[in-house]
């Protein structure tokens, strides 16, 4: 074997692209974490916090997140359908369009063009590009699954299909806008409707960019890398359908104590809390899968990525719903607790499962073993420590902030000025920068180990 297959080249193309955008997004994340406690780190007009914050979230969600998901999905799909991709050339062309789209989107954010909708900041020309990218992707995914040679639909395929369909609907609906100029548009919905649609989108972006695709990976790569089959097919399928059904109702929990109707907030909270069950269905399935032989945590280096990943998913899906409750929302909403919560999901669950999946894919595609398990383990521990310290730091200061905001004197005046509550964040924000740096060093270990595994695989291939 001298060369890898065309499908493998496509998968690797998406993985390389996602790594490129990942490095940029992480470094900008580190920079804005410094800007929070030292304004001297704002440079010129392009490198100010207001612009870089959106660059950070969008580059990581769309560049790293979607890039990785497209690559990993293509890999999983060819395996589970037992056929090659239906349109490999289309996937190659789409890879180019994807990178141009993310580049163009990033530049416009640097220039300050934004729709002012969180996680939907890209202006309308970029939105059209994103929709084209996603539709081309969907054609390939749905086409390949529809013409599959394996009749049985493994649960990962269900999670992939729902990701493809849901992201399309969410992205298109929330980006409907009245165009004013090439660089400016206005949300089609106004006032409370705008807020409601935006958070329906915003929350489900988390659901269908950071939950269902990662579960697709988890259900496939956990049994593949441990050689331990998934505990219960039925549990996985019931969890799937109930998760998908409930998720789409939950967005209003972002608008608790807002002027949107009380019944709508309550309905959002109800579905948010009940969602604990389908989420934990996957957590339990993961634990029960490894339950017959926990020594795999030691003997198979990828196992701990998946098990710690699903553990953070489990914590995330307890913490998240509880935040939807009125009493808890009133304490932590608008505080730094929230970035602590978000980053446990992204840096814990998403990153651990995605990077482990990439290790697995690269060793399979190049028919080799990992370059160094020791380096992969170093990657694991640094990323784990960085994330845990990051999250806990933000939770502590978030509660402190919320409690100070809510404190008042006997005569009803506020006990603390806003400035006092803000200055209290400084040591925690500095700690976040340190833990973020630890996380990034861990990710550099990942990058190095992954690339060296490819190099090793290529060398072995050419010597055969």
């Amino acid at each position, binding site marked *: 074997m001298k060369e890898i*297959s065309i499908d493998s080249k496509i998968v690797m193309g998406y993985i390389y692209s996602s790594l490129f955008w990942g490095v940029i997004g992480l470094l900008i994340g580190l920079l804005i974490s410094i800007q929070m406690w030292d304004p001297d780190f704002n440079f010129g007009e392009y490198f100010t916090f207001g612009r870089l914050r959106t660059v950070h979230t969008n580059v990581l969600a769309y560049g790293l997140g979607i890039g990785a998901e497209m690559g990993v999905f293509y890999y999983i799909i060819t395996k589970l359908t037992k056929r090659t991709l239906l349109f490999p050339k289309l996937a190659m062309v789409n890879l180019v369009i994807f990178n141009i789209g993310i580049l163009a989107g990033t530049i416009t954010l640097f220039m300050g063009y934004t729709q002012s909708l969180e996680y939907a900041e890209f202006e309308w020309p970029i939105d059209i590009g994103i929709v084209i990218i996603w539709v081309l992707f969907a054609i390939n995914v749905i086409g390949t699954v529809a013409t599959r040679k394996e009749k049985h639909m493994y649960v990962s395929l269900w999670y992939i299909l729902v990701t493809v369909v849901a992201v399309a609907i969410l992205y298109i609906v929330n980006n409907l806008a009245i165009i004013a100029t090439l660089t400016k548009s206005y949300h089609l919905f106004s006032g409370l409707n705008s807020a409601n649609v935006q958070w329906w989108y915003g929350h489900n972006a988390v659901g269908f960019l950071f939950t269902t695709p990662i579960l697709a990976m988890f259900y496939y790569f956990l049994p593949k890398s441990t050689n331990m089959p998934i505990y219960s*097919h039925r549990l996985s399928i019931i969890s799937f359908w109930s998760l998908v059904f409930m998720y789409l109702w939950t967005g209003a929990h972002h608008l608790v104590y807002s002027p949107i109707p009380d019944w709508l907030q309550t309905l959002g909270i109800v579905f948010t809390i009940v969602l604990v069950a389908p989420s934990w269905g996957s957590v339990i399935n993961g634990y029960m899968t490894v339950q017959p032989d926990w020594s795999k945590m030691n003997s198979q280096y990828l196992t701990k990525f998946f098990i710690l990943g699903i553990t953070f998913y489990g914590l995330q899906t307890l913490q998240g719903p509880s935040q939807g409750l009125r009493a808890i929302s009133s304490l932590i909403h608008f505080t730094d607790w929230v970035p602590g919560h978000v980053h446990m999901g992204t840096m814990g669950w998403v990153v651990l499962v995605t990077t482990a999946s990439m290790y697995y894919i690269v060793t399979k595609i190049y028919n080799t073993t990992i370059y160094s398990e020791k380096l992969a383990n170093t990657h694991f521990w640094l990323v784990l420590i960085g994330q845990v310290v990051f999250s806990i730091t933000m939770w502590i200061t978030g509660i402190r902030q919320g409690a100070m905001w809510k404190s008042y004197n006997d005569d009803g005046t506020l006990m603390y000025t806003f400035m006092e509550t803000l200055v209290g964040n400084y040591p925690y924000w500095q700690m976040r920068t340190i833990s973020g740096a630890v996380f990034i060093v861990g990710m550099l270990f990942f990058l190095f180990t992954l690339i060296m595994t490819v190099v090793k695989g290529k060398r072995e291939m050419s010597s055969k």
Partner: protein
Amino acid sequence: MSIEEDNVESLSRKDTAHKLPLLWVVLFVGLIAWGVYYFFAYTPAFSGWTQDKEIEESLDKLNLN
């Protein structure tokens, strides 16, 4: 080069394929029951509760109104 094929059947366990852990089912049913209760208790049309009333009452309690 032949594509390495997965044995899809081998990804799931046979003996426990249809199992649903009892505690999980109890959790699920319990959450749905709680959800029904919460929806009725905090929907103005059913229980009369509103967030405006809640804030008024909390202010009354503090004699700040």
